[in-house]
């Protein structure tokens, strides 16, 4: 089975197969034995690529994985050959309506806009407080506010839809 792993400009095609029950990975013109030993309960692994030792934590995250490896962290998009063929992982739509969401859980301190209002790029839409910091939430591009889903004093979860803006 082939996998395509991407992170920014980096992409690798990796093919896994079993040879006499042993796992090998093909990466470019190299074929390396792979030993992926689980440590504990399912997210932590001791990986041996050839004789190269790597302690990793792998967690699924949407269409990809987050890999923690000896103090480093990588966000990777992973597709298998079927998914790639089906074009399952599409880039997010560009332009159009802006859905402003909460990047973190917090409390809405103040809402500066109302539906119908025109806003400039970078305009502060509302102020969200989290961990004692007041964070202005800003419009990414100019447009007209079509919906405000929160009010001052309300708590919001991470990812909650706050404000929607249409191109002017």
């Amino acid at each position, binding site marked *: *089975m082939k996998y395509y792993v991407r992170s920014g400009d980096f992409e690798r095609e*990796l093919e896994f197969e079993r040879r006499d029950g042993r796992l090998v990975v093909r990466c470019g013109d190299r074929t390396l034995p792979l030993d992926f030993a689980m440590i504990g*309960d399912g997210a932590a692994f001791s*990986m041996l690529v050839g004789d190269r030792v790597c302690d990793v934590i792998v967690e699924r995250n949407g269409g990809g994985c987050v890999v923690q490896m000896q*103090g480093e*962290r*990588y966000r990777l998009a*992973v597709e298998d050959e079927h998914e790639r063929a089906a074009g399952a992982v599409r880039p997010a739509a560009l332009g159009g309506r802006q859905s402003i969401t909460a990047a973190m859980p917090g409390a809405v301190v103040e809402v500066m806009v109302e539906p119908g209002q025109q806003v400039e790029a970078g305009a502060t839409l509302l102020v969200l407080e989290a961990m*004692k910091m007041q964070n202005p939430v800003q419009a990414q591009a100019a447009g007209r506010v079509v919906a405000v889903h929160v009010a001052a004093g309300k708590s919001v979860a991470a990812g909650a839809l706050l404000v929607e803006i249409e191109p002017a």
Partner: protein
Amino acid sequence: VTSPFRRLLVANRGEIAVRVLRTAREMGIETVAVYSDADRSALHVRRADRAVRIGPPPPRESYLSIDAILAAAKESGAQAVHPGYGFLSENEDFAQACADAGLVFVGPPPAAIALMGDKVAARRAATQAGVPLVPGADQVGELHELRAMAQRIGYPVMLKAAAGGGGKGIRIVESEKALAEAARLARAEAANAFGDDRVYLEKFLVRPRHVEIQVLADRDGAVAHYGERECSVQRRHQKLIEESPSPAIDARTRAAMGEAACKLAAAVGYEGAGTVEFLWSEGEFYFLEMNTRLQVEHPITELRYGVDLVREQIRIAAGEPLGKVPEPRGHAIEVRINAEDPDTMLPSLGAITRLNLPSGPGVRVDAALYRGLEVTPYYDSLLAKLIVHADHRDAALARMERALRETRIVGVETVVPLALALVRGAELRSGVYDTGIVGRHVKATDEERLELAAIAAAAYRFLGAEQHAASGAAATRAQAISPWKLAGRLDVLRGQR
């Protein structure tokens, strides 16, 4: 050895509460923890001799409630109160209320807290003590006044909370256009954090370094300093990496800064442990503020000087005289591990599901972490402090890199990847850096390591899919893999060898 107090209440939570409890225990002092409902299972509660509930999770109703903490002290029979850092540690009303209730406050007298806590009054005191200041406003102003002052000293300027500290309420303003909005946000943040919305304004220095001096003063007026800490690696005005000694400071400057810090402490009738913060820019140093409490980064001083600053605080509070300042040795570095996304630097909440903290030669970890801990939005995002000590700076940097690579915290995002990249980076290693270092940091990609991570991610998917196929289930590729099934499958695989 007789203990100065029989029972000490620690009016704090998290790693600093655990830190204080440890020394108290070593001194033979009984310890009392206080906790909000969010912290019933916290380590500082479990490590204390006694614990008293002080209210619901919001700090205003628990760790910031003077009444609740005094009631807890009375109920538990404590004789002294250690405030830690943050919360009520720099609140003169609290220090006074402790005294009025017959409790020893482990910290400076209320008047010294009040004077240094009002940043405007502190600047005046520094001027009188002959300590150099950053050009700026010595009075708190309304918007039109701020605007006029900013024009006079020139942009960029910094807005700061008059009652501030810990980086809260600080805004850099690049131009007059941004002043009104920045002032409004700084005021709101200041009001919320300190209950005081006054802000003042200061010249923004070129490539400044943040260097601070640790002082100790006793009741008889003796003052001594314990060298400097370099705290220029900051993001959002919050310190991330600290080291001692500072690579920028020579012996002459160190002596001058130490003398200035001691003069200021003496001038304000200081007692206990305090830190005088300076900005260092182009060979000159300027007084920034004095923190009238133990600093988060105090362990690097402890490792270099072989001193326990909490023990010194407690001894001084009991009326004992200052000890002799030992000769400092080697180089110490601290990394603050905060629960935040290393790319966006936004707070990350969740439960700690996996935890491996580093150890080994020259490594100290101050933390209140345990597996299962819920990181809540109520409190500071500091999870742990990694502190290393070695004979010289290069060895300390190598040791910190090693310790960071051993650190594994799963369940919340942490700044470990960012700290590791900075510690490995050329700028920090050169020693020539300033408070802009994090902003300039460019994420470098090591293709070889990225490839290993890619192999791990794909192998995880491949083995999951293999397991799925083997179990005969419909191959729904998007479905998450059960770790238990995967574990079983991997056990089988390993058994086949």
